[in-house]
Each structure stands twice: as structure tokens, then as C-alpha cells.
């Protein structure tokens, strides 16, 4: 059996404009091209660009909206990086960071000496199937326009996104996607390839613009702001999950947590390999989305999996040695670097619940820059039968300690076992 990998989302930067009947793409391009700029994050020592993306003028004069992930280097290490814009006609100047919405991957900057008329944000999403135009600077090769189709709100996304069928490419992140009237429907943010692309809905851009003050944000204030956003976001996710009963599914004699919410996608399969004397049933679930904080720090994720392993040949000692071997290698994991997170701290013990004993290992690590946020890793093995065992793992990325405790406890409490032969 092949496990299904998570949907890979690649951040990009587009720019686009719209047309409808009577408006063709060249017109759209010509009319809005001066509202879209390339954003370059410059390394202060190398004195050249370390990252590029796109942005567009919106809100007050000189304000440029882009993705948070485009300017993350500037936000995280302001001493190392600075930002500048480069317009389609060759104008350039510095950019100052005003505000960010890390959860929805948005940032507002202020451009020096450039303030064309701003684009307007659409008040509501267009009808599904509408023609849309995405603009941006793909692969650092100049301004491009991409024509595509609006396919509604993503239904299985933890963080609301619009589905745009069109080729958004790396470098277009932060650019606008426009409807036929030139209003910004969404902000280019990511793609799954094959013309499956995603936009941040304009409503979140509007909310950020409305809450932004026209003055540069300091490093400490920025950190407090992002931390507060992440804490609030995980609180909302946790509250929703904890307010309902956890749905479960049956794996032979075990009931285990199934898809906890619509935005969690589950896949499963089974295998019975020879000459390996283990039979397996997999059930893997995860959120399709995450929040970008740094190159190796993605947060706001929930992943879990259940492996039901059984044997009719192996001696119990050999069978449990295989389980031991498997649980020593984390099946799910979150990225991280020493400068962003601490090491995991782990503890193992027996836990009894619903007349089943589990060997439980639980680990947590803390975010260095975002106080109050942790990643957790919970893995458990049922100790019921000599020839069958359930191994389940739950990974929570970017939650408070209180919510990690509650969600992890609920995860275990949702499990049960009954002898299928009785």
C-alpha cells in the first residue's frame, strides 16, 4: 500500500487583473500594470535579493499589500534584511513594514516615493466560474498576467482560501487576482500545481488594511502582534474541536478518532506483505493547510494517524519488538530549527482508559520567539492482545499548553476497544 502524502502547497507570487465580455486580457494588463510591484527582500551584507514576491497598492497612498511569507525574513530578522519595491516601469524604492496577519499570510508595507491609485478590494466573492486575472512577477522574470477561473471557497481548508484555476507560479505570491471590474478578489498565495492555485480572500486583506496604522511597526510590537494572532487562532480551532464529540471510525476491534472537522482530510489503506509477517491497516488524517512563520517553521497544524498491526505468525516478543522499532521513528513530524524551537521533551508511561492499557509517549517543544506556543507529539500503543496492537500518533503544531493537554486527552479518550470475537 502507498501512503498518501500531504497536499504540497508551494507559495508563489502573482499579479492579475480581470476582464469580462468586452474586456480582453491585454487591456486588463495595460490598465492595472502600474498598481503591481515586485517586492525584493535584500540581504544587508550580500546587498542583493534573498527573496522576491509581488505586491499591489491598496488602501492609503503608498500602501502595498503582499504575503507575510514574502517578507518573513524582514519580519523575523530586521537587522539582516531590508525590503524594496521594483515597479514595471523600473522605479524602485524602500519599503517599511506596517502590519502583518500571519494567520492569513498577509502583510502591509509602505512604499517610499511611489503612490499610484490603489486597487479596490471586492466586497464579495464572484460567482463560481467567473473569469479572473492574476498578476505578479513569476521567477523574477518580469510582470505577468495569468487568466483563470474562480472555483469557489476551499471546503477542506483550515484557513479560508479561494480556489483559482490558473497557473500561479513562484514569485507571484502577494500579487492581486482581479475580477472583470478590476476589484481584487483575492491575494495569490499558493499552488498545488497543474493550475490548482489558491488565494487569500479579499475580506482578510480588508480587515488587515482597516486595522493598520500608517507608521512602521517595531520588532517587539510585531512579535507581540503575531503571537497574539497565533494564540487567538489556535484558541478558535481548539474551541471548535472541543465543543463537539470526536467522530470515530472502526479499525477491527478499535474505535479511533476519524476526521475531526471538514478541514481535516483522512486517507486509509491496508497491506499484508509477505514475507513480512505483519498485516497493517493505516488511517492517516491531517489539516491541508498551515501557517508559514519561517522557512522551517510552519504552525497551526493537526496531524494524526492510526496503524493497526497484527500477526498470526510472530511470537509476541518478536511482534512487540517490531512495534517498538516502529514507534522509535516518528511517523509524523514538524519541521523546526534550533533558532525557532526548543528540543522536544518527552515522557512515557502506561495510561489506562476504557479498560484498555496504552503505552503512551508524549513530547513537547516550545517556540522560542512566540511565547505560549508549543508543538506536541503524542504516540501510543495499545497493550491488549499478543497478536494485534493499535499505534496512534497525534501531532499538534502551534497550540497553547492548555489546549494541547485538552486535545491530546480527548484524542485518547475517544479511543476504545471491544473484542470483535465476543
Amino acid at each position, binding site marked *: 500500500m502507498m501512503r498518501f502524502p500531504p497536499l504540497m502547497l508551494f507559495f508563489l507570487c502573482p499579479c492579475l487583473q480581470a476582464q469580462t465580455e468586452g474586456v480582453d486580457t491585454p487591456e486588463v494588463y495595460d490598465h492595472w500594470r502600474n498598481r503591481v510591484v515586485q517586492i525584493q527582500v535584500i540581504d544587508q551584507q550580500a546587498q542583493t535579493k534573498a527573496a522576491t514576491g509581488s505586491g499591489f497598492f491598496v488602501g492609503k497612498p503608498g500602501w502595498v499589500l503582499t504575503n507575510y511569507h514574502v517578507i518573513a525574513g524582514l519580519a523575523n530578522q530586521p537587522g539582516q534584511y531590508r525590503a524594496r519595491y521594483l515597479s514595471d516601469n523600473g522605479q524602485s524604492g524602500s519599503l517599511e513594514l506596517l502590519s502583518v496577519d500571519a494567520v492569513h499570510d498577509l502583510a502591509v508595507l509602505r512604499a517610499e516615493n511611489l503612490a499610484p491609485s490603489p486597487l479596490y478590494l471586492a466586497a464579495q466573492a464572484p460567482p463560481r466560474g467567473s473569469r479572473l486575472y492574476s498578476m505578479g512577477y513569476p521567477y523574477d522574470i518580469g510582470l505577468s498576467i495569468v487568466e483563470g477561473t474562480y472555483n469557489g471557497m476551499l471546503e477542506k481548508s483550515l484557513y479560508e482560501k479561494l480556489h483559482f484555476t490558473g497557473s500561479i507560479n513562484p514569485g507571484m505570491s502577494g500579487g492581486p487576482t482581479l475580477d472583470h471590474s478590476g476589484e481584487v478578489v483575492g491575494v495569490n498565495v499558493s499552488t498545488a500545481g497543474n493550475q490548482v492555485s489558491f488565494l487569500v480572500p479579499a475580506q482578510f486583506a480588508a480587515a488587515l488594511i482597516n486595522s493598520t496604522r500608517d507608521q512602521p511597526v517595531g520588532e517587539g510590537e510585531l512579535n507581540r502582534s503575531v503571537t497574539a494572532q497565533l494564540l487567538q487562532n489556535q484558541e478558535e480551532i481548539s474551541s471548535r474541536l472541543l465543543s463537539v464529540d470526536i467522530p470515530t471510525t472502526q479499525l477491527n476491534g478499535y474505535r479511533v478518532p476519524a476526521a475531526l472537522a471538514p478541514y481535516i482530510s483522512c486517507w486509509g489503506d491496508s497491506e499484508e506483505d509477505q*514475507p*513480512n*509477517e*505483519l498485516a497493517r491497516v493505516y488511517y492517516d488524517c491531517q489539516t491541508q493547510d498551515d501557517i508559514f512563520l519561517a522557512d*522551517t517553521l510552519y504552525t497551526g497544524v493537526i496531524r494524526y494517524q492510526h496503524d493497526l498491526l497484527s500477526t498470526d*505468525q510472530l511470537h*509476541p*516478543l*518478536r*511482534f*512487540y*519488538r*517490531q*512495534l*517498538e522499532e516502529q*514507534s*522509535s*521513528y*516518528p511517523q509524523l*513530524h*514538524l519541521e*523546526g*530549527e*534550533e533558532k525557532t*524551537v*526548543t*528540543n*522536544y*521533551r*518527552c*515522557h*512515557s*508511561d*502506561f*495510561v*489506562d*482508559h476504557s479498560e484498555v*492499557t*496504552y*503505552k503512551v509517549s*508524549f*513530547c*513537547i*517543544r*516550545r517556540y*522560542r520567539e512566540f*511565547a505560549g506556543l*508549543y508543538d506536541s*507529539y503524542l*504516540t501510543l500503543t495499545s*497493550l*491488549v*492482545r*499478543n497478536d494485534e496492537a493499535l499505534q496512534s500518533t497525534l501531532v499538534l503544531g502551534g497550540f497553547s*499548553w492548555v489546549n494541547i*493537554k485538552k486535545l*491530546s*486527552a480527548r484524542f*485518547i*479518550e475517544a479511543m476504545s476497544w471491544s473484542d470483535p470475537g465476543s
Partner: protein
Amino acid sequence: MTESRVQGVHSVVVGVIEMLNRSGQVTQREPWNGSMLRVGRAYDNDIIINDPYVCPHHLELLTESGCMLVRDLGSVNGTYAGKKRKPVATMALQDGTMIQVGHSQLRFHLASGEVAATWKDTTRQGLLSWLGKPWILLLASLVALVALAADAALDNPEQLQLLTMSSDMLYPLIAVLIWAGFWALLNRVLTHQANFPVHLAIACLGVGVLFFVAQLVSMVIFALGLDDWLPWLRLFGRVAILTVVIYAHLRYATVVSMSHQFVIAALAAVVMFGTPEIGSVIERNEFSSLPYLEPLLRPPGYRLARGETVDDFFEQAQLLREKADRDVRP
């Protein structure tokens, strides 16, 4: 005083002159009857020293007024005596007096001086003497084979096949033979006896004990739910077993005191097993984006400890949070 025949003359030995090599071991002993005895590089000396820094006639030992003396004969590089190596022209000799001439050392002992207690040869009597018996080698080999086969079977999830298991066991068996061969060689060099069967028996028993004790300890840790102790118990357990194994080898291969053999064995065990284990413990504290997990798992029937409730488990996990918070502090 001891009677001895020196050059055909029946005389009384009053002391012994020992010649030492650079590591302090005695290479030659000359009985001394108290009459004048000359030491130097020339062939007409009573004791001839092959050392270019020693004069042809360097010093003499003599008795004056009942007192035994060493006297320098105006040598180029001098004569030094005692622990502080003071230069001497003439000096009284006592039991154990060290005399340095050129780059060579002499030691004087009174014939009536005390000698160290006789060492008990535990390789020929007592527990260790069993290792020399042929049936022990047979038993030890069997123990090692069973241990290696069990280890191979536990690690392999596939159906057991003789060929697969044999190949899994081949390298450990070769390692055991090399290990025993090394000790036999050392034994041969130091005592002129190889004792290969004995060293092979020790190596085989070591392999068996390491495996079975490790299994036993793991089962106890699992049964009692003491997983957090595992790294340290494994470290000390392995070092202790290896110390005993090396000590047994040293008992046969070397002629030094038991306490020295034990210290050498412990140091070697720490270097061989302890250092890598300590390294892995340190490595666990180095940064990794993955959690370091080592949950012991055994069949349900092996468990003795009661499980925690879910709430109690996470209450205890509060300590993890405090540790993680402390990790953030510079």
C-alpha cells in the same frame, strides 16, 4: 642472612642488587656478600652495565665498619640515589635504596628485607579456574549462539530462515573470534601462553550475558514503567558487564595486581562502551527537529505497573512544559 656460593666460594649474602629497565621491571639480580663490588661499563666489573652514559668504573659497593655503602668513583655523569635523586659521593645503603647511574637504575635490597605477599592464582583455583575447563567453552559457545540467534530473530519481522539468521549472526561471531584472538595474542606476549579457549569462553559468556541481562533489564523496566531510567540503566549495565569481561581476560593475560587489573578493566569498559553511550546521551540533548523516542514495548502480559488515568498522565507532563520553558531561557 642467606648462604650462597659465589664464584665457588661459600659466602654469606647480605643483600641483592637489582637492575631495572625503564618501566621499573627487574631484569637482573646479583647477590652481594658485602665485600667490595664494582659497577661500570668495563668488563672487569662485578656488575657490567651496557649504558654509554655509565663510566667504565662508575661506582662501588662496600662495607665499612659494618655499614653498607655506595661510593661514586669520580664518574663523568655522577651517581644519584633516593627518590629525590640526590648526587652522592658516598652514601649508606638501606633496603630499597634506588641508585641511578647514567640512564640505568639499580636497587638495593637487604637479604633480610620483606617481600610482597604471594598472589593467589585465581585462574587455577576458584571461580575463574572454571573458565579453563573444556565443557565451559562448549557451554559458553552455546550461550553465545543462542543469544545471537535470539537477537537476530527479534530484529527480523520475517519468517525465520536458517540462511538469513546465519548471515545475521556471522558478523557478530567473527567479532567474538577477533576479540578472543586479541586477548590470546596479548596473553601470549605477556605470559608466553595464549589461553585462546579460555578467552573464547570469556568472550562468548560476555555476549550471552550482555544479551540476556539486557533483555531482563528491559523487561523489568517495561513491567514497572520506568522508561525514563532506560538510558542510564543501559549505560551502567553495559559498562559493568564489559568491566567484568575485560577483568576476566586480564586475569589470564597479565601479571599485575588484581586491583590494577580491575581499574584497567573499568577504564577500558568506560572508553569502549561508556564513551559512545555518554555520547548518545549528549546527542539526545543536542537539537533535533524530531522527538527522541525510545518506548519499551513488550506483550501485555509482561506489564506489572498500573496505568495512569489520562488526566494524571497529562498532569505529570506539566513538568515537560516547565522544562521546555526553561530551554528558551538563554
